């Protein structure tokens, strides 16, 4: 057991002692048990699974952020985090459509702006998938 904290700029979404956390990172899912090596890496949109002994695992949908595995605790800082049931499907679908439209015609946009659009697209796709609305999206698997 170790202490896990998942924090967004607007709230602390999870704080407590856990057995294992499975986190989506740029290189695939990463399971973190007690005494994990010290690690600092990026979190990508996907779901975090929190396991506690004798309890149903909790799933939380997150977007971009970082995870810091220190000696005594694990901190996950993400831009947004939701319970899958909290995701605003309508809003995300509208956003996704808007971003896709912009991506269809990228003339005149800088590389940075296109990068940002891809980021928004990935974020919306994954959130929709986790809400059970978009089965096409690819979620990183180990």
């Amino acid at each position, binding site marked *: 057991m170790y202490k896990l904290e998942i924090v967004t700029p607007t*709230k602390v979404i999870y704080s407590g002692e856990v057995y294992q956390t499975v986190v989506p990172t740029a290189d695939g899912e990463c399971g973190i048990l007690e005494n994990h090596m010290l690690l600092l890496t990026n979190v990508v949109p996907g779901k975090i699974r929190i396991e506690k002994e004798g309890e149903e695992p909790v799933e939380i949908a997150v977007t971009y952020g970082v995870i*810091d595995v220190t000696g005594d605790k694990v901190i996950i800082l993400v831009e947004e985090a939701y319970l899958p049931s909290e995701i605003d499907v309508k809003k995300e679908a509208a956003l996704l459509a808007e971003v896709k439209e912009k991506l269809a015609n990228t003339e005149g946009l800088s590389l940075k702006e296109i990068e940002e659009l891809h980021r928004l697209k990935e974020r919306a796709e994954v959130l929709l998938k986790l809400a059970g609305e978009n089965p096409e999206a690819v979620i990183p698997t180990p």
Partner: protein
Amino acid sequence: MAKLSTRDIKRKIQGIKNTQRITKAMKAVSAAKLRKAQILLNATRPYSDKMYELISDLAIYVEREDHPLLRVREENNVDYVVVTADRGLAGAFNSNVLKRAFNDIKELEEQGKKVRVIAIGRKAVQFFKARNVDIIEAYEDIYREHMNLTFTSQVGGIITSRYIDEKTDAVYLINNELITTATYETKVRKLFPIETEIDLKKIDTIARYNIEPTKEVVLENLLKQYINFQLYRALVESNTAEHAARMLAMDNATRNAGEAIKKWTIIFNKARQEAITTELIDIINAAEALK
């Protein structure tokens, strides 16, 4: 002062009463908004604490040369991000920030440095436009709908790419922050180059840390998130302080209006008494004459 008739005085009192009614209502609205804003502000605190923890962890095993955003240059070009409110009627709330920013800018320009401004809030935009300060970007009307990370990442993107492209050598953030519900303070923070403090107690962990995939990639992400959040926090702080300032200003205005009403009521009573006395004298004189 020309002598006012009782009717004029009455009208004046009514006018003050109307103003007082407005200031009272504005105070109540600000109080309600302040409560809401404070909840939002308190919600950012844990993230803020954790972010500082992370950055100070990071400072141990990262060197200034590791990322363009950490490199320190001679400060020849300086950017100021100035955050004010969209509306006035909040006491010295806006002018405190603007005065401070303008003084700093003048000082830097006297040293031969080039200063540019990113203005957030209508008051800041108007102020700098009127004074011919070089504005990179101006934002108005953001507190109501766009006080979120999407907006701040837009602003953050502009200043990070300016810093990386060496268009600017230092970026400062200036905004009001709430100290207690009744006081706020103007704060200037350095955004770039990012300042870090090293916690010496943690230094033995350096060698054991793993950064995946690479230091550069993680740093890039973390620093972006850090800047993004700093801007977001500045907006939230400023918004909260604005409502507190307006509440206070309106409270004072209501009290002053009350005093003015008292003063004018006395004047009114005196004037009325005077009118009655003159009338009485007239009647008595007339009666005297008839005898």
